[in-house]
C-alpha cells in the first residue's frame, strides 16, 4: 500500500509502525477497560458506587511507563532523523529551485531540467531554494521533505534503492496551482545516467527529455 524506495524509508516505516503498534495496544486496553466498566458498573446493576479518591502507586505507574515508552519513541525518531540529516561525502550535487508553480533542477554541468533525474544506488544531495514564496520539496516514496524558503538554502539527501520513477510534490501551500506543482524523480542505473548526463551536457538543453531504457 505504501511505496517505499530509499534506505531510510524502511527505517521510518518501522518507527511509524512501532508507534502505531504500541498505540493500538494501549488504545485497545483503554477501550476494553472503558466499555467493561460502563457495562459492569451500570447503575441498574451497581446502584451504589465506591468512592476511590486515587492511588499514588498507580499514578506513578502510569506516569513512568508512558515516560519510558515516549522516550523510546523519541529516540527512534531522532535516530531516524540523523540518517536523514547527515549527508554523505561525495553525494551528487543538484540544485532544486521552486517558484510558483514549478520545480526546476540544475546539474553541475549547468543543465536545467523540470524532472529530477538521478543515478540509482548513489547518494544525491539536493540544495533547495525558492524564488518567491515558501514551497516544500516532498518525495513521499523516500519519506522525505524539506521546505524551499526564499533567501535560504536547505539541504536534503537520498539514495534510491530501485530503478524507477516517483512523484515529487510541493507540500507547503503556495497559492492557486499548489496542487499541480508535481514532477517526477527518475532514478536510472549509473551507465544510463552517465550517458544521459553526457548527452545533456553536450546539447546544453534546458528541458531535455531522455528516452529511458531501464526504468519501470
Amino acid at each position, binding site marked *: 500500500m505504501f511505496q517505499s524506495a530509499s534506505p531510510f524509508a524502511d527505517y521510518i516505516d518501522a518507527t511509524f509502525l512501532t508507534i502505531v503498534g504500541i498505540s493500538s495496544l494501549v488504545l485497545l486496553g*483503554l477501550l476494553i477497560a472503558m466499555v467493561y466498566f460502563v457495562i459492569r*458498573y451500570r447503575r441498574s446493576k451497581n446502584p451504589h458506587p465506591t468512592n*476511590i479518591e*486515587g492511588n499514588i502507586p498507580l499514578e506513578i505507574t502510569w506516569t513512568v511507563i508512558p515516560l519510558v515508552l515516549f*522516550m523510546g519513541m523519541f529516540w527512534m*525518531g531522532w535516530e*531516524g*532523523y540523523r540518517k536523514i540529516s547527515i549527508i554523505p561525502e561525495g553525494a551528487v550535487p543538484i540544485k532544486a529551485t521552486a517558484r510558483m508553480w514549478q520545480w526546476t533542477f540544475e546539474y553541475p554541468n549547468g543543465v536545467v531540467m523540470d524532472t529530477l533525474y538521478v543515478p540509482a544506488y548513489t547518494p544525491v544531495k539536493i540544495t533547495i531554494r525558492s524564488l518567491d514564496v515558501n514551497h516544500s520539496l516532498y518525495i513521499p516514496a523516500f519519506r522525505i521533505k524539506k521546505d524551499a524558503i526564499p533567501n535560504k538554502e536547505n539541504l536534503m539527501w537520498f539514495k534510491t534503492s530501485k530503478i524507477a520513477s516517483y512523484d515529487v510534490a510541493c507540500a507547503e501551500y503556495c497559492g492557486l*496551482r499548489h496542487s499541480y506543482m508535481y514532477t517526477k524523480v527518475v532514478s536510472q542505473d549509473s551507465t544510463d545516467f552517465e550517458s544521459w548526463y553526457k548527452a545533456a551536457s553536450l546539447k546544453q538543453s534546458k528541458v531535455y527529455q531522455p528516452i529511458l531504457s531501464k526504468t519501470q
Partner: protein
Amino acid sequence: MAIAAAAHGAPEPDFYHAPSKHKGIFAWILSTDHKRIGILYLFSLLTFFLIAATLGVLMRLEMLTPGKTIIEPQTYNTFFTLHGIMMIFLFIIPGLPAVFGNFMMPIMIGAKDVFFPRLNLLSWWLFLAGGLLALVSVFLPGGATDTGWTFYVPYSIRTSTNVIPALMAAFILGFSSILTGLNFVTTIHRMRAPGMTWFRMPLFVWSLYATAWVQILATPIIGITLLLVAIERWFGVGIFDPSLGGDPILYQHLFWIYSHPAVYIMILPGLGVVSEILPVFARRTIFGYKFIAYSSLAIAFVGSLVWAHHMFTVGMSNTGMFVFSFLTFLVSIPSAIKVFNWIATLYKGSIALEVPLLFILSFIVQFCIGGFTGLMLGALAVNIHVTDTYFVVGHFHYVMFGGTGFGLFAALHYWFPKMTGKMFKKKPAVVSWFMVTIGFNVLYFTMFILGYQGMPRRYYDYLPQFQTLHVIATVGSWILYSGILVMFVNLLISLRKGEKAGANPWGGETLEWTVPSPPPLENFDVVPTVTTGPYDYSKYEAVQEAK
C-alpha cells in the same frame, strides 16, 4: 457539595425574566450578566460554527473527484482559509470558556458574577466585531483571503486578496480572548465563596484557570505578529519579506509561539469538561483530583515551549530538532495521566449512560487517537514524511473536533437543562451522538491513511490513486454534518417543547446544581459556604454500607 444555605424567601425570577434597564434585544446585547453573555456567545459561536462546518462539507464535496467537482481552485483556497480562521478564532478558542466558562464558572465557585462584568460584555462585542469583520472581508473587492489560517509569509504579503481585514479580525478576536482570560483569572482568585479552597474547585474551573493564563500570556504575541504582517503589506519595512531582507522563518516562530499554546487554549477546557462530567454520571468522586488539576497546569506550561515542532522541515539545527521533539514527547505525559485517571473514575462507579456521557466516551477515545498520532508526529523521522499532509489534518481534527468539539457537544447537553430550564429529548440526542461519532471517524481516520500515502494538505486537486479514500472521507462528512443538524434541531425543538427540568436533573454535586434552572439574576440568594470537595458522592455509598 454540602452547603450552609439560609431559608428561601419568595422565589426570585430566573435571569431570563429578571428586570433590566434595557428593553428587547438591548436587554441582551448590553447586559453585563455573565449568564446572558454566555448565551450571547453560545448563539453567535454556533452560527459561526455552522457556517464554517458548511464550508468544510463543501470542501469535502470538491474532493470527491480529482479535478473540478463543484468549485474553482481559488474558491477552494479561500474556503479552507475561512474554514480555519472561523473554526479556530471564532469557534474553538472562545468555545468552552466564553460560553460555559462565562455561564457556569462564577456559579461553580459560588460567585454572583465575574470580577469585571463590563469588561466581559466588551469581550463579547470585540468577538462579534472580529467575527463580522472576518465575514465582511469575504465580500470586499479583492476577494476573500487565500493564505490559509496560518497567514504564512511571504505568500500573505504577496497575495492580492483581502489579507488585512482578515488579519485585523484575528487581531481584534485576540483582544477578546485576552480580556476573557484576564477576567477569569481575577474572578477565580478573588471571588471564590467561603470555603471554596483551590482544591475544592471543580476541575472545569481548574482547566479554565490554566487556559486563562495561556490566553493572557500568549495572545499578545499573535497580536503583534499579525500587526507586523499588516505593516509589512502597507509599508514594506522588511521584517518578514525576503525580497527586502526580511526573514520568513521569523514569522513562523512568532506565529507558533502563540499558535501552539493556542492549541492548549482549545483543548484544556475540553479536558476540563471531561473531568467535570465523568464523576456526575459515574456518581462517584473523580480519581486522582490533584493529578488532573496539576496536569492542566503542566500542559499549559510545557505546552508553551514546544512551538517549533510545527516547523521541523524549515531547516532548523539538529539541536533545535532534538530539543523540540523531546519537549513534545514530554508534554504528552500530563495528557496521558488525565486519560488514565478518567478511565479509573469509571471503576466501581454507578454509571448512567446519559447523552453527555456518550459524548465524553467518544471524546476519550478520539482524544487518545489524536494523542497517539501526535506521538507519531513528534517522532522526528516520521514527522518529516507526514508533516503538511492529510495526516496532520486528521491529527488536529481528532484533537480539536474529536476532543474539544465533542467536549462542547457534551457540555451543551450536560448544562442545557441548567441554562434553559428545559430537558432535551433523549432519543434524537442519542441518534445524533451516534451519527456524529460514526461520521467523524469515517471522515478523519481516512485522512491518516491518505497522509501516510503522501497526500499533501491544502490541495485542490489530487492524483487518481487517492480517490477511493477521498470518497470515503466525503461520505463521512455527510454523516457527520447530518448528525450535527439532528443535534441542533433537537436542542432547538427541546428549547420550546422540552419538559421542565428541575434544579438538578443529573444528580450533580457542584454548586451550579444547587441553584434553580435557569438560575436567578445573581445566582445565589445567600453566598454558599463550601465544606467539601466538588465530587462528593459519599451519600450514595453510605446507603450501601447501611444495608
